[in-house]
């Protein structure tokens, strides 16, 4: 039997913290502040939509095998879906990132939201890079040959071997997607917990400041 003097369990702390910071009505709201009314807000969800397509088509390619798409029309089409999803993913993410920069979206204790977003961007570049290395065509041969010099020059090549197809494939389909998935999940949960950053001048009147 627990008593009030007993030390609170970790699971209890986690539940209370979750309930306090991210109750269900914050996680799945049906209203947004009136200022959330610009096309720029669409690029965050568009990035997530592209990521979903990348994961779905990537899983399909994984189940069929790394060389499947070279000799199958269906495989080539799925590879094309994966390819164009990646292109749009980056376009949407870069616009989203610039939009958030000009909104100074880190205001109001949202620093971690910015950091996780930027980490997702940098991590996505690494993930896409390994994807280009495992195309198993001329482009991936050349990219691995060229890129080795950059990584070797600072010692990273001693462990991260871009010419090692097996290592790159595992990183691309397992390790890096998990990292990106976790960072993205944290990013989205932070957005929901902290709310969408208010306009820069929203509180000028309360603070007695000129616009």
């Amino acid at each position, binding site marked *: 039997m627990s008593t009030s003097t007993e030390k609170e369990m970790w699971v209890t702390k986690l539940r209370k913290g979750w309930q306090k910071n991210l109750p269900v009505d914050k996680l*799945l709201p*049906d*209203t*947004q*502040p*009136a*200022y*959330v*009314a*610009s096309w720029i807000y669409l690029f965050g969800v*568009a990035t*997530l939509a592209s990521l*979903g397509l990348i994961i779905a088509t990537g899983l399909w390619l994984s189940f069929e095998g790394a060389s499947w*798409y070279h000799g199958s029309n269906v495989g080539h*089409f799925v*590879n*094309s*879906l994966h*390819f*164009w*999803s990646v*292109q*749009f993913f*980056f376009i949407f993410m870069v616009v989203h990132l610039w*939009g958030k*920069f000009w*909104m100074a979206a880190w*205001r109001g*204790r949202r620093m971690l939201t910015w950091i996780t977003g*930027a980490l997702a961007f*940098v991590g996505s*570049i690494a993930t*896409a*890079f390994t994807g*280009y290395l495992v195309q*198993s065509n*001329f*482009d991936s*041969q*050349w990219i*691995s*040959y*060229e*890129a080795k010099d950059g990584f*070797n*020059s*600072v*010692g990273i090549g*001693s462990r991260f071997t871009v*010419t*090692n*197809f097996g*290592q790159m494939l595992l990183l691309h389909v397992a390790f890096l997607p998990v990292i990106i998935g976790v960072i993205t999940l944290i990013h989205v949960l932070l957005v929901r917990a902290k*709310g969408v950053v208010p*306009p*820069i001048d*929203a*509180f*000028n009147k309360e603070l007695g400041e000129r*616009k």
Partner: protein
Amino acid sequence: MSDRRTELESAPWGGRTRRYDLIKEGVVAVVIVAIVVAALSTLFGSPDDKQVTFKEWATAAPADFYATSVQELAGSSGTGGYGAPYNKASDGVNLGPLYLAKLLGVTHPVDTVNDFVITPLTTVSNAAPVADALKQWQASDVKTQSTWATNYDNALTKVSQDQAKVPAGNYGPVPELAAGLLTMAQAGSLDGALLSQGNYFQTDNTKQTLFLGDGSYFNDKSTASNLQGSTWGMMNETGRYPGQAWLWLYSFWYQIPPFNNGDSHPFGANADAWIMVIMGALSLGLIIMPLIPIVNRLPYKIKIHRLVWKNYYQEENL
């Protein structure tokens, strides 16, 4: 930034709100992006230029392949003189006093003589001249092997890789070994031998890729496809497809002085290392952008945010 302002900006929004269906927005986004992606995939497909094989190289450019094989035996190829992580032939590039690759050592040993030429030749049954050449090579000491290979490499270079014009000399079995490897490559059996190195399971293509890159054929092909680093190659794709455009800033540094001049010391000659450091610093800068003075005030000075919240500012008379 005042504490009061931070309090207000972090507090739950108490102003006007509007209906907003998060789930519907997400579903519509997925459907629209999927339609656009499917349309582009149907119309344009995706790049897939066939991989270069040793058979292709040895058949299309036999003189280049032959000369490269000789260089591998002499240790004068790009890989032979690379340094860490493949061998100890050179110190590699440096960041001032720091030779990071050398510091971390040879973690991926590549012996161009044995891995690229001798071991693959031993995996097939060779005609008499090649078989005899192999026996002669394996029975001699390293110093003699090196002398033969270097003599022949120099002689071949002097006559612009034209074997017929090489004068007689102390070359040992090197010409026969290179000819044997050329025959093996043209028959299509070198690709597998280089990868497997006598094993069954193998997924590391490092040795194949390094050997391929030591010749001119592979490089010429990439030049024709605008894939060289000096022509923004890192962000290009084969054919008329978008590549890794998000690497534009990384590629950019290779286009400007001093990084575009390999003879310029200390930066041009060590461009790979310095550009990695620059990009590492810039990536860190992006992550901690809100903490960087001046940069974190730009959104307040350049009021692009007024476009984003145009309607709200008008409605609230801000």
